[in-house]
C-alpha cells in the first residue's frame, strides 16, 4: 500500500469496525473560563501532598518539608485566607460587571429595534 492510500483505508476500516472509544480521563481545552470556574479556583486549597522532594532517596527531605508546613500552618492559613478573600471579591465584582454589561447590551439591542 502507498502512504497516500493508508488514511482512506484506515477510515473505512474504522467505520466498519465501529468500535466505542474507551472511557476514562480525557483532556479537553478550556476555551473560556466561566465565572463558576473562577469561583472554584478563587478559594485556594494547596495540596500538602504536592510538597515533596524530587531527589532520589528524598523521603527524609519530603518528611522535613511536610513538618515545616505543619509548623507554619497558622501563618499559611492566614496567607490562604487573605488571598482567597481578595480572589473571591475580584470574582464577585467581575460577575457583577458581566451581568451589568449583559443588561446594557440587552437595552441597547431593544433601543435599536425600536
Amino acid at each position: 500500500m502507498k502512504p497516500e492510500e493508508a488514511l482512506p483505508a484506515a477510515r473505512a476500516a474504522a467505520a466498519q469496525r465501529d468500535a466505542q472509544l474507551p472511557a476514562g480521563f480525557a483532556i479537553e481545552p478550556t476555551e473560556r473560563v466561566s465565572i463558576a470556574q473562577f469561583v472554584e479556583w478563587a478559594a485556594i486549597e494547596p495540596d500538602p501532598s504536592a510538597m515533596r522532594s524530587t531527589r532520589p532517596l528524598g523521603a527524609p527531605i519530603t518528611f522535613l518539608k511536610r513538618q515545616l508546613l505543619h509548623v507554619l500552618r497558622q501563618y499559611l492559613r492566614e496567607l490562604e485566607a487573605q488571598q482567597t478573600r481578595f480572589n473571591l471579591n475580584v470574582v464577585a465584582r467581575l460577575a457583577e460587571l458581566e451581568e451589568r454589561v449583559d443588561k446594557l447590551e440587552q437595552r441597547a439591542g431593544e433601543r435599536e429595534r425600536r
Partner: protein
Amino acid sequence: MRVHQVLSGAGRYDAVTTQAIAFRALFTAWGWGGRDVAANIDPRVAGEIAPIATLQPAAGDLLLIHYSGYAPRLRSVLGLPNRKLLISHNITPARWFWDHDPMAAVSCALGRKQLPEFAAAVDVAAGVSLFNARELGSETVIPILFDPAQAGAPGPEDGPGPPAPPTILFVGRIAPHKRQDAVIRAFELYRRGHAPDARLVLVGRPVNDTFESAIRELAGELSPGAVTIEYGLAPQQLAERYRAAHAFLCLSEHEGFCIPLLEAFHFGVPVIARAVGGLPEVAGDAALLLGEGDDERVAAELLALVASDAQLRAQLRERGARRVAAYAPEPTARKLRTALESLGKPNRSIG
C-alpha cells in the same frame, strides 16, 4: 563577532536550551564569542547558562533571543541598543493548561501576549517553522538544529524490523496538549482489535505529579501492564526506544516544530500524527497525517496498517530519510550564520 543568546528559561531537558547550547558550539567553531543567559534557570544547567542580570553586551554585539515562554525579566533586553534576532520556539495556547497546570497556563497566556510586542521590537523575528514565523507576521525560518549523528545509529535498513511484540512509541512532555490520553485510547483500540500483546512506550517528563498520576491511572485502567511511562533517559536509552518501536504515534493538539518527528524519521520508525501547527511542514509526505475529523479509531487502524504492511513501512522509511536530509544541520547552520551576519551589517534586511 560576538553573539549573546538570551533565553526565557533554561532547563536540563528542554529543547530550547539544547538548541542554544548547539548554537553556542557553532559560534565557537566560527570563532565568535558571547555568552548565554536566561531569565529562569534550572540549577542543573547553571554551569552553562548565566543569569540574565549578568548580561552586559558591548556596542556592536548581537543578541539572539530564544523566546519560549513569558519571563518578566526578559523585557530589560529590549531596551538594550544592540541589534536583535528573535527566534520563536512557539508557546502553547493557555487553554490546554488551565485545568491541569495553572501556573503554566498563566505563563503561556502572558507569553503569547508578550511575544508580538517582542517581535515588533527586534530587528529580525524568525520562527523555527513557517507556522511559528507567520504567527509573528514573518517569513524568516531558522529551523531546529537537528544532528542525526548525535541521535545515535538507526537499526539495520533491510532487516525484519524490531522484534515482537508490536511496540508503539511517543516521545514528548507528558502535558495536556500532547494528548497522551488520546494516544493511550488509540493504542488500546489497536490492542483490542489487532494486537493483544502490543506495548506502548511514552517517553517524556510530566508537567506535574497530578497530571502524571491521571495519565498513569488511565493507562492502568485501559491497558493494564501494557503501557510504560519513562523520563530522564540518557540519549543511548532514547535511541534504544526508537530502535525497538514499530510505529511513532503523535496525537498532539499543538506543535510548533516537533523534534521527535525527525528523530523517528532518522530511526526509520513510521510516523502517524495529527496534522497540527508546524507538524505537517516538518513531516512533509513522510508521515501518515490524521485530518481534523479523524479520532483515535482511525489512528488505531493506521497503527494496524503500518504494523502489517511492509511496503508501506519501507516507503515511509524512505520518505522519512529525505525529511531528515532536508533538515540537515549544515543548511540550518548556514541560515543561522547568514541571518546573524546580515544583522551585524548596518542597514541590511533579511528575507
